[in-house]
């Protein structure tokens, strides 16, 4: 089967969101979740630099790709297998600022892992967020398996799997796309291509410009999208969802984007990229860009922006306060849940 890689262009116009089937409220909701993801992340860096928490790994710069794609899914019905940057995805799927901060401080109440995993290792059975570990690309096979189960039971849930362009070099990425292609599974592979895997640039990761080209080798379409254009991300994902629900199989979406922060709080990005490059990409901030659009279309007025800012700040403040005070696990917690049935050491 020959499939063609499409370039999706950002179309102008002040009612772009409406032409995509999004109400004004939905458009604002997308904006607010992007803002919340960013605000939580910024607060985490602040706290980390004050020495109050050991580790941050960021979504900053990639919120458009994350919230735009997730917004085309049905939280709690569809499934996501996110990777560590996907704060925007899991917030859209029902995690809260408090959940994020509980994980950041590794508290007992952390719903992802009860303080066992580093921040960014999301998971909630209730919210249909598949738990992630640290080895990259393993989640792509899990997503294929989740989708296989949906197909076996003839259910219409769609599963979205997220990963970086570095993770795409792993064998599991190939195995997952191959399997999903063979069985025409309802999987959407979302690559957030931010140009680097820690320090290694895309040119040392692959010999091609567009990862999306690989989709042809698996018998399904690959789409390149401007990852900093949240509505474009929504649009291509909605098309992929429709295709998946029609039983036509997977889509690979490559969202070209950039991370504003170092790889993590333990990285020094000055060793491998120029400050000017970061500055250029900051001009293309997906949140600023979307805010401009929303203002031009008249739905993001000053009072609305103020309300959103207040709500976001309040959530972050409350979440931080709550999580920092929340109890740690006890030493006894070390031994529990090695197995589902009871504590086996």
């Amino acid at each position, binding site marked *: 089967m020959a499939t063609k890689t499409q370039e999706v262009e950002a179309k102008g116009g002040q009612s772009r969101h409406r032409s995509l089937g999004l109400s004004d409220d939905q458009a604002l909701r997308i904006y607010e979740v992007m803002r919340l993801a960013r605000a939580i992340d910024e607060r985490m860096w602040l706290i980390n630099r004050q020495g109050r928490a050991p580790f941050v790994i960021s979504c900053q710069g990639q919120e458009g790709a994350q919230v735009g794609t997730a917004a085309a899914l049905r939280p709690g019905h569809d*499934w996501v*297998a996110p990777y560590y940057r996907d704060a925007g995805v899991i917030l859209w799927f029902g995690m809260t600022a408090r959940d994020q901060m509980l994980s950041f401080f590794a508290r007992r109440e952390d*719903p*992802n*892992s*009860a303080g*066992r*995993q580093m921040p960014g*290792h999301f*998971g*909630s*059975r209730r919210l249909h967020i*598949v*738990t992630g*570990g*640290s*080895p990259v690309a*393993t989640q*792509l*096979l*899990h*997503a*294929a*398996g*989740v*989708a*296989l*189960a*949906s*197909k*076996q*039971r003839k259910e219409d849930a769609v599963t979205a799997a997220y990963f970086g362009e570095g993770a795409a070099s792993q*064998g*599991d990425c190939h*195995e*997952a796309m*191959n*399997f999903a292609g*063979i069985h025409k599974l309802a999987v959407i592979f979302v690559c957030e291509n931010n140009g680097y895997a820690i320090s290694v640039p895309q040119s040392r990761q692959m010999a091609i410009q567009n990862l999306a080209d690989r989709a042809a080798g698996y018998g399904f379409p690959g789409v390149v999208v401007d990852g900093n254009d949240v509505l474009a991300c929504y649009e291509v994902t909605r098309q992929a969802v429709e295709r998946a629900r029609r039983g036509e199989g997977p889509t690979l979406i490559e969202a070209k984007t950039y991370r504003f922060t170092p790889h993590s709080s333990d990285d020094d990005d000055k060793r491998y990229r120029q400050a000017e490059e970061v500055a250029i990409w900051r001009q293309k901030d997906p949140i600023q860009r979307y805010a401009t659009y929303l203002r031009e279309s008249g739905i993001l007025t000053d009072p609305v922006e103020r309300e959103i800012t207040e709500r976001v700040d309040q959530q972050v403040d409350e979440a931080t306060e709550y999580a920092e005070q929340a109890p740690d696990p006890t030493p006894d*917690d070390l031994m*529990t*849940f*090695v*197995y*589902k*049935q009871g504590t*086996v*050491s």
Partner: protein
Amino acid sequence: MAQKTVIEAIREGMDEEMARDPSVFLIGEDVGQRGGVFLASDGLYKKYGEYRVIDSPLAESCVVGVAIGAAVNGMRPIAEIQFADFIAPAMNQIIEEAARFCYRTAGDFNLPMVIRAPWGGGVHGALYHSQSIEATFGHIPGLKVVAPGTPADAKGLLKAAVRDPDPVLFLEHKRTYRLVKGEVPDGDGVVPIGKADIKREGTDLSLIAYGLMLTYCLQAAEKLAADGISAEVLDLRTIKPIDQDAIVATAKKTGKVLVVHEDTRFAGIAAEVMAIIMEHAFDALDAPIMRLTGPDVPAMPFNHVLEEAFMPNVDRILAKAKELAAY
């Protein structure tokens, strides 16, 4: 009750579990049309269709990774690794993912899945069709590892593994598939994971084994009896969680223990069994605990002289047991 081989018992176990529970399915290389390279799933593709018996691509990480995802979403997969020797490409998915889902989510996620793998030597399989993997995987908390040696245990433990809420590595010794026959009870006959079984009572010494070595130990015990030595044979059946009580009980009863496995020696299961006995039955010992194992070479060679030199056999068990009895 009927006489069956190990492979028949495994096939029947899968068939009955698939009939009982529509969420049970099989995925692996050649398991469909072909019925598996050992015919473990012979007839199941025809009976249950291509989405209950899935011919996977030739990719072990895919087999296990997809099984994990399906288990997340309400299914009970049985993932077949064609030979234990080819499990390495799936180790990341097994060790870093499957074994940790429950722990890393404090019980929010659990994976009811079975990974079946034909293992062991004595079949002229050479380096890459003879390996033992129980020590490697027994070392991984979060996994359960079983290694039955009889048809009844194979069927009963397979059923327990399918119904278990956690990932179970189910090791089927290739040499036993058609060599070992035995009574298999009608009906469910579930054998609990984690329980060893005394396959022969004795008073002078204890032979502890599993898999093919169980059969060899039983044959050795028969010959020892002719020499007036009463050997007890304890079949571990489950490697992890190991049945500490049964090990300690037989050690206390006879005071002399020989552990036998074909897996390589260093940090093998015998070392763990010996440590358990030292910790809990030291006072009852009448002799140093002994072990008879495969040698510390990378794997079993093809040439029959070298293969025989690698594998523990009845004669060697007999010689070692007599040395122990005379101590």
